[in-house]
């Protein structure tokens, strides 16, 4: 490795300047000070300035997101067709009939997220416990890369998988009259599969951060491996595990392609009084549209600017942004608040 700037002319000159004061008389202290003063380097200032600018672009991105979502949402709510109250209370989403109540879309998102968590939390946590506490290095070396492969697969491919494999299987099991071609269950299961590696890797990180002295203490008291894992390591890593689950949830809420392809494009409009809660509202076998699904479907057509449809996707986007931001900061707060400091 070359020492920094060894060959540059500037460097040699600097060295000469530094040696010269040795020969100076005592009276020339002021002069010496002057020479030892930091040399101005305008080139470097420019470089550091542009590095700072690169960092500041991320701020511009956030500002841009907030500004555009806010501006278009404001246009949406100031339109006489829809009011903020109606948007957040109505349970009918029919853009054609100018009914904009966000609850059917939130319902769709919630259903899929809950199903996804039912799939992903047991599988993800169990995998994490096994990999962190039980697996030999060889077994770990086999399973860990496979889970990482799962992370790398694009979500649209998961969507293809949902349509061509999971949905037909579900329709075979429960009957084609019960399960619709587009249904929430298929989308939920596949989104669950999608977030398994996320939850398992975050949980595993949390568990391997638990100091081994805790494990050894428990073993010393006669605990079995099972007791050590479930009663010592998991509770000690609980904050990290919970944070991982919340992150997984945020990911499921923001997931677009699987739900667009597998869950259908019909918002599940409901009426709290007359529709049966478990028969229709929460039914996993029927189609539902999610917030992300609505945005994707609406934007995939030729959408013209400054229409109510165009503005509505921004109002939904803002809601989605707030929800995911809330979940992400919740997870960070969990880690901060409940983290155990072991030393």
């Amino acid at each position, binding site marked *: 490795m070359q020492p920094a700037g060894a060959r540059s002319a500037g460097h040699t000159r600097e060295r000469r300047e530094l040696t010269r004061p040795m020969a100076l008389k005592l009276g020339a202290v002021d002069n010496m000070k002057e020479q030892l003063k930091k040399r101005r380097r305008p080139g470097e200032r420019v470089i550091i300035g*542009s590095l700072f600018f690169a960092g500041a672009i991320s701020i511009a991105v956030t500002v841009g997101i907030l500004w555009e979502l806010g501006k278009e949402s404001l246009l949406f709510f100031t339109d006489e067709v829809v009011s903020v109250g109606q948007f957040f209370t109505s349970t009918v989403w029919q853009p054609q009939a100018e009914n904009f109540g966000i609850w059917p879309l939130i319902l769709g998102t919630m259903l899929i997220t809950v199903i996804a968590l039912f799939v992903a939390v047991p599988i993800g946590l169990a995998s994490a416990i096994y990999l962190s506490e039980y697996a030999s290095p060889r077994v770990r070396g086999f399973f860990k890369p496979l889970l990482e492969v799962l992370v790398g697969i694009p979500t649209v491919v998961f969507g293809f998988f949902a349509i061509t494999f999971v949905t037909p299987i579900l329709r075979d099991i429960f009957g084609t009259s019960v399960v619709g071609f587009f249904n929430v269950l298929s989308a939920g299961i596949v989104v669950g599969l999608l977030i398994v590696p996320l939850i398992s890797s975050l949980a595993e990180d949390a568990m391997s951060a638990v100091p081994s002295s805790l494990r050894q203490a428990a073993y010393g008291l006669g605990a079995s491996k099972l007791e050590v894992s479930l009663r010592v390591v998991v509770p000690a890593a609980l904050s990290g595990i919970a944070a991982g689950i919340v992150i997984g949830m945020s990911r499921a809420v923001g997931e677009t392609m699987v739900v667009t392809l597998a869950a259908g494009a019909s918002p599940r409009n409901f009426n709290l009084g007359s529709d049966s809660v478990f028969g229709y509202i929460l039914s996993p076998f029927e189609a539902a549209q999610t917030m992300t699904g609505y945005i994707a479907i609406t934007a995939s057509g030729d959408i013209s600017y400054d229409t109510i449809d165009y503005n509505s996707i921004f109002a939904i986007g803002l809601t989605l942004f707030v929800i995911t931001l809330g979940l992400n900061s919740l997870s960070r707060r969990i880690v901060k608040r409940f983290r155990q400091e072991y030393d």
Partner: protein
Amino acid sequence: MSIEAPERPVQEHFPTPDEYAGLLSKRTRRAWVVQMFLLLMLTIAVLGLSILLFTIIDDSFGNVATVNQVEPEEGVVLAGLDPATTSFGDLGKDELVTALQAGINRNVGRRLEREQRFYEDRLVFEPQASWDELCASDDPAPGCTSSARDAGNVSLLVQEQVIEPDIIAVSGMVESLLNPAAFEEEVARDFAVNPEKYPDYTFDQVRFQWRAWFSWSFITSPASATPEIAGIRTAVLGSIWLVAVTVLFAVPVGVGAAVYLEEFAKPTRLNDLIQTNINNLAGVPSIIYGMLGLAVLVRALEPITSGSLFGTGAPNGRTVLAAGLTLGLLTLPVVIISSQEALRAVPGSLRQAGMGLGATKWQTVRSQVLPVAIPGILTGTILAVARAIGETAPLILVGAASFITQSPSGPFSQFTALPIQIFQWTSLPQPEWQHLAAAASLTLLLLLLILNGAAVILRNKYSRRIT
């Protein structure tokens, strides 16, 4: 965590050796059961992955039942050759043009010639006089200026216009290999039971043949509305253009930001804000970036992204440039965070040594820190780019056109991309399109595999620890 000691149970009865053995075996059994449960869950996750990959490969190949309007042998006859000695694949461009002339009517031929001409020096369907008139008019046809069609293109035209293959049923790879007869029986039964589904054909016309949906010609053919000849060249080229723009934007900016935050930033409020902000951005759903791209890059900056400011380009801002920058913004936080990790892994002693020799901070960073950190930065960047290639939702928002047969030619052209193509095909109901989507997915996965492999090799090659 406060540990509360549970009340100590008063042990009145100690287990006898027999009872003790029972208790112990119960405990071991429970441990075994739970361990098996954990392993089972892990296996389920891996099984899910395997089934997913299997589904894609299974759908990418398989037997198909095809009905041709004109059999390829007749196509050879149309070209004026003997089908006994020549097969369709051997036909050259001139013979193919002859077959096309014989097989389609004049008006269709003129339309094709106006799209793109067959020969540079002569016309096939259009009379010279009307062609000259057309090209001299205010609105000349694209064929007036573009180069001539090549043999592969003409061959595709003959297949599309003359042979007109129609795939009426498809099966998966495993079924085709293990039990090909079942598929033929199934089609025959369908002909017998639902004759109204096939008004134009009889069962005798059906040909069963092996078809690799994923093949070289699939990768090199342009998109088409006919599933039998549709390919992904346009989409692959679109994805390559997108990645180029993404990398050109995200890598310099991302690495620059990481260098600033790791090496120069003093812990001021502003710098803390930047760091927190980057962590937050990494968690924003990709579709939100798509909305940012739509509102700012496609709409507000339309003069720039459509290229009209530079005098060229597309009718609107839905171009490679806008989409590539959107993906760049999306990738940026990931690039920054992974580059920061790579920089953090550089031991401080290197920096101190550099500074101790009298180098300035920037000189130290440039000549000492960055060279050591570059393998790590590259690995992180490749992984981030691999993620960007698979992103679909933001591209839908910025309006990747659904059906384009023209390959993108620069940053200002309209485009489609591989994941968009998969999305479009998957949402179509006919099974042929599903198989095309599978083949396109396979292409995408192989592309990602190559990129990830490159990242692993890079990591292993340069992972000498500097201590």
